[in-house]
């Protein structure tokens, strides 16, 4: 009797043990990663696409790391603090971090890397993306001090972005094709435009990481190849899944489609100083005439969220919830046009491109819906480079532009570069002193509630009279094989591989 009880207890204990123990991370394996487009170059100052960001994130490290909730976490900096006005920030570095060539990383390397990005001769668009940095100084071997031109609460977050990677001075000439960093992976093989092979860095400063032996990034452009490869296990992760093949992938039991809302969007933009869009009634008419659901469906196949004519998406904690979601209202649009002097409708040209997925499909849907309000849209599909270099920079009458914008992690970056008077990417020439004042004040604050009030008002103004029709935000979709563990989608399409493992 006692013997049976003992056996029963032992069995129960084993069962309980198996159920409650967490699966251990497996070391080893080669992760194959597919990207649908590539842009060559590994210099963090000049990378501009997801495939490049992914590689520099694996090869280099930053002071801070952006996690999947868009919060800064310690990486090369084990801690940081700021003075009361948030104008001077001090970062305390990890010790014993080695570059791939064996040399230890010190504060001088941080100073060099940041100054390099800020230097206009480097021609990096990151110069304006790190915040208002006046000076960066190495206080001692493991301490870096940032002196800012004004209060800026988001500095730790910005130092986690793709420009703020820490590079080695001696490597600068070969940075684009033979980079060395302090990241979890070293560059093993590089065939630009074709394939990249990364191998584990055995001296990585976070002990135990990375789990993977190697990471291969391959360029798979053709849909048939993408579907075959992930279905057959030739690749483990597909970075961006084209909407067309989602249906097929979902049918495969070994493939998981991951989806996360992201701040990327495709706006239809109107030149503020040109006829007819200099009249706010016309701009509003355009926004009311559009069938947002149809545009969302056309561009993303339903994998996105509706936009409310500002660059801030509804799932962002900064979103102005009091703002009602704009709905299609054709009679009101017609009335506004009549009031503006366009009783018989409006003829406009919309420049779009097939160069980015979903753009031209949404333009077609917009054209269909605008017809009902008397807005006759002529579509001009041009090469994406021409769209940006030629058409976007030349304001013209009766012309609209469709632009594809990547999401930004901070609220200030989402709005200021586009809407502040004469700002870097304010191609529509929008200028409102009230908005300028709101953005400037909010930038210097650190308290969430106070900042939110200012950004709420900004959103209301842009929603009513701004130059953009933002109909939708595109979700970020990836596909992974079910044996890939701990692969998290970061909404700004960064890829973190150091703690991913394969079963």
């Amino acid at each position, binding site marked *: 009797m006692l013997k049976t009880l003992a056996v029963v207890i032992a069995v129960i204990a084993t069962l309980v043990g198996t159920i409650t123990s967490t699966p251990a991370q497996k070391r080893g394996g080669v992760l194959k990663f597919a990207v649908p487009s590539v842009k*060559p170059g590994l210099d963090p100052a000049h990378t501009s696409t997801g495939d490049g960001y992914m590689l520099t994130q694996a090869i280099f490290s930053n002071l801070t790391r952006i996690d999947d909730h868009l919060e800064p976490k310690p990486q090369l900096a084990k801690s940081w603090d700021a003075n009361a006005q948030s104008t001077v920030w001090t970062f305390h570095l990890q010790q014993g971090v080695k570059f791939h060539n064996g040399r230890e990383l010190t504060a001088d390397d941080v100073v060099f890397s940041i100054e390099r990005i800020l230097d206009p001769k480097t021609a990096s668009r990151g110069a304006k993306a790190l915040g208002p940095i006046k000076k960066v100084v190495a206080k001692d071997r493991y301490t870096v001090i940032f002196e800012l031109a004004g209060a800026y609460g988001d500095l730790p977050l910005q130092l986690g972005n793709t420009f703020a990677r820490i590079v080695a001075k001696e490597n600068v000439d070969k940075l684009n094709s033979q980079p060395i960093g302090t990241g979890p992976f070293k560059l093993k093989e590089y065939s630009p435009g074709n394939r990249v092979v990364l191998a584990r860095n055995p001296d990585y400063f976070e002990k135990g990481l990375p789990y993977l032996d190697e990471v291969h990034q391959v360029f798979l452009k053709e849909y048939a190849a993408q579907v*075959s490869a992930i279905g057959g296990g030739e690749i483990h992760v597909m970075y961006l899944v084209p909407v067309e093949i989602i249906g097929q992938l979902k049918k495969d039991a070994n493939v998981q489609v991951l989806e996360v809302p992201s701040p990327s969007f495709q706006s239809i933009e109107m030149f503020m100083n040109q006829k007819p869009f200099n009249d706010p009634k016309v701009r509003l008419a355009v926004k009311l005439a559009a069938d947002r659901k149809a545009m969302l469906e056309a561009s993303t196949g339903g994998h996105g969220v509706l936009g409310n004519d500002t660059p801030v998406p509804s799932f962002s904690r900064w979103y102005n919830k009091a703002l009602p979601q704009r709905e299609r209202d054709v009679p009101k649009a017609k009335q506004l046009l009549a009031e503006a002097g366009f009783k018989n409708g409006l003829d406009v040209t919309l420049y779009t491109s097939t160069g980015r997925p979903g753009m031209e499909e949404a333009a077609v849907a917009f054209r269909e819906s605008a017809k009902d309000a008397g807005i006759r849209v002529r579509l001009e599909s041009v090469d994406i480079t021409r769209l940006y270099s030629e058409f976007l920079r030349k304001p013209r009458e009766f012309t609209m532009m469709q632009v594809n*914008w990547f999401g930004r992690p901070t609220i200030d970056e989402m709005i200021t570069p586009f809407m502040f008077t004469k700002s*870097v990417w304010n191609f529509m020439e929008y200028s409102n002193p009230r908005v300028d004042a709101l953005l400037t004040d909010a930038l210097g604050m650190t308290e969430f509630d106070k900042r939110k009030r200012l950004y709420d008002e900004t959103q209301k103004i842009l929603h009513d009279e701004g130059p953009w029709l933002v109909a939708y935000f595109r979700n970020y979709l990836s596909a992974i094989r079910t044996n890939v563990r701990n692969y998290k989608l970061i909404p700004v399409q960064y890829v973190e591989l150091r703690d991913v493992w394969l079963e």
Partner: protein
Amino acid sequence: MTLGAYVLRRLGLLVLTLLAISLLVSGIFQLLPGDAAEQILGAWAERSGATLTAMRARLGLDRPWHEQYLGWLAGAVRGDFGKSLAMDVPIAPLLAERLGYSLRLAIPALVLGVTISLVLGVVAATRRNGIIDHLITVVTLTGVSVPAFVLGSVLILVFAGWLRWLPSSSALAEGSGPGYWARILALPVATLTVESLAYITRTTRSSMIEVLKTPYVRTATLKGLPRRVVLVKHALRNGLLPTVTVVAFNFGWMLGGVVVVEQVFNYPGIGSLVLFAIEQRDLPLLQASMCVVAFAYCVANLAADVLYAVLNPRIRY
């Protein structure tokens, strides 16, 4: 003119052609909207253009056109084609690598295509206007008119997706040696072969038909010689002359003109490199790769003309 002198003259013209091509490409390029700096920066180039100016200075694009061209030319004659603006790597080794890939694709495809086409062409000519002839016509025409990317997609889905005999893309295969090459070349070679079948077959067929009608061949048949002897000893030698020209054309085409097949299979050949250079506005890379393609084309044509002259004494120069 002797054959040797003829070849030398053609080679001289070849050099002139290459010069003209690089000049032409460079000139056309100035008409292309946007440049490499704008490509790198994209929409993120600022309104004020400050970053753009700095980037142009970095890439050497702020020099006047003729200076850029002459600088490139001076390097090119020494074998140094400069650096690719978009990839930031030296061009010469990159070109050599891509050319190697293209040759590995073109040669098997050509050998396979020509062999099959010759057989089909001769068969079609000898059974002219019969069922087999019409069947061959329809099959080869279908082969060439099914768009290459459709055929390619179907092949990938069947052989890589369903049967799993071959990799889905050349970037996914591992290893080296003949086994590796056989695996990554199988599908692109198959697609290219199907594409080139129609024209070589039809050229062979029409010229064979012409030759078979000539008094020379008819006499041989009337003399009582067996069909096969007539065919091989008398008809083929002249009948295949136009085929030589078409084959040379095909070879040149396979080296540079098969961009679509290269894109579908992710095969890193020269055609894709040219497409990339155009998209990225990478002028040094475009000039160099266009010259290489043109060079290969001209050499192939020269070889065809020499072969033609050797086979057909009547048209010696």
